[in-house]
């Protein structure tokens, strides 16, 4: 029989490390997927995931089961990813020239249907990542949570620790910031 999260947490707090390993095993696919939205290099992704589970281990004693463990862990994950984005925001401008004319052409012509090949999917992924990398940390976080993962404003407020009005203001600014980035790409294309 599979143990519940609260059983595993209680056992971990009593000193049973294998219970925590089971918790990691259960949640690491979701955490990896979340982190891959914010970091590209595999070594960076692994470091962030490790940091999230290390923080969770250190703070597990303060977890009071008021919300499901998954929500608590996701909050920790989103905040760690945001810290990562803020720490690496200086590298943002470097990737502007990485966008090729072909990728932008493809996006303009794309009809929103399924990708025809894995090459096309990876080109699209490259374009999305490069565009998101141009955004400020808060704009990238909001665009990812609100528009790509389609979470509600209330949910984002809980995940980030920001107030609901602040999330709305940041979402408005993030959309404007993204439009500016795409205008920059387009200008580059026609120069």
């Amino acid at each position: 029989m599979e143990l519940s999260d609260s059983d595993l947490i209680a056992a971990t707090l009593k000193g049973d490390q294998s219970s925590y390993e089971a918790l990691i095993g259960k949640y690491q696919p979701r955490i990896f997927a979340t982190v891959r939205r914010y970091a590209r290099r595999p070594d960076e992704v692994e470091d962030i995931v490790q940091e999230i589970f290390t923080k969770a281990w250190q703070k597990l004693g303060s977890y009071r089961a008021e919300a499901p463990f998954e929500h608590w862990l996701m909050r920790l994950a989103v905040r760690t990813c945001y810290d990562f984005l803020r720490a690496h925001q200086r590298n943002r401008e470097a990737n502007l020239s990485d966008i090729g004319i072909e990728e932008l052409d493809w996006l303009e012509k794309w009809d929103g249907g399924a990708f025809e090949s894995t090459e096309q999917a990876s080109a699209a992924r490259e374009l999305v990542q490069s565009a998101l990398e141009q955004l400020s940390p808060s704009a990238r976080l909001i665009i990812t949570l609100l528009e790509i993962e389609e979470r509600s404003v209330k949910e984002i407020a809980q995940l980030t620790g920001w107030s609901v009005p602040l999330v709305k203001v940041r979402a408005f600014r993030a959309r404007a910031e993204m439009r500016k980035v795409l205008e920059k790409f387009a200008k580059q294309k026609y120069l």
Partner: protein
Amino acid sequence: MNSEHLRQKLIAAARALPASEAVPYRFEKRIMAGLGASPRPDFTAWLIRALVKPTLICLGIMALTSVWTFVQPLPPTTDNDAPEIENAIWAPLDSLGDPV
């Protein structure tokens, strides 16, 4: 092409590309190797969290009481209070009688 239209297409492309959930082989072992001593229940954090609500309630009551004290009209004062207080203070000495 309009930048808003391009933005919406980019978002649609991002949605169509779910992030991979792949986990490196035995990654949980790597995490476990990097962990320190077992976590313990954090009673300080629990105590702080338990005290926050009652403290806020007490502060609220305090604030309301203060406001009520200022807003409430003062009882009417009479001009005869001063002689009454004076009499009360001097009453023990008066009862001793005049010094010889």
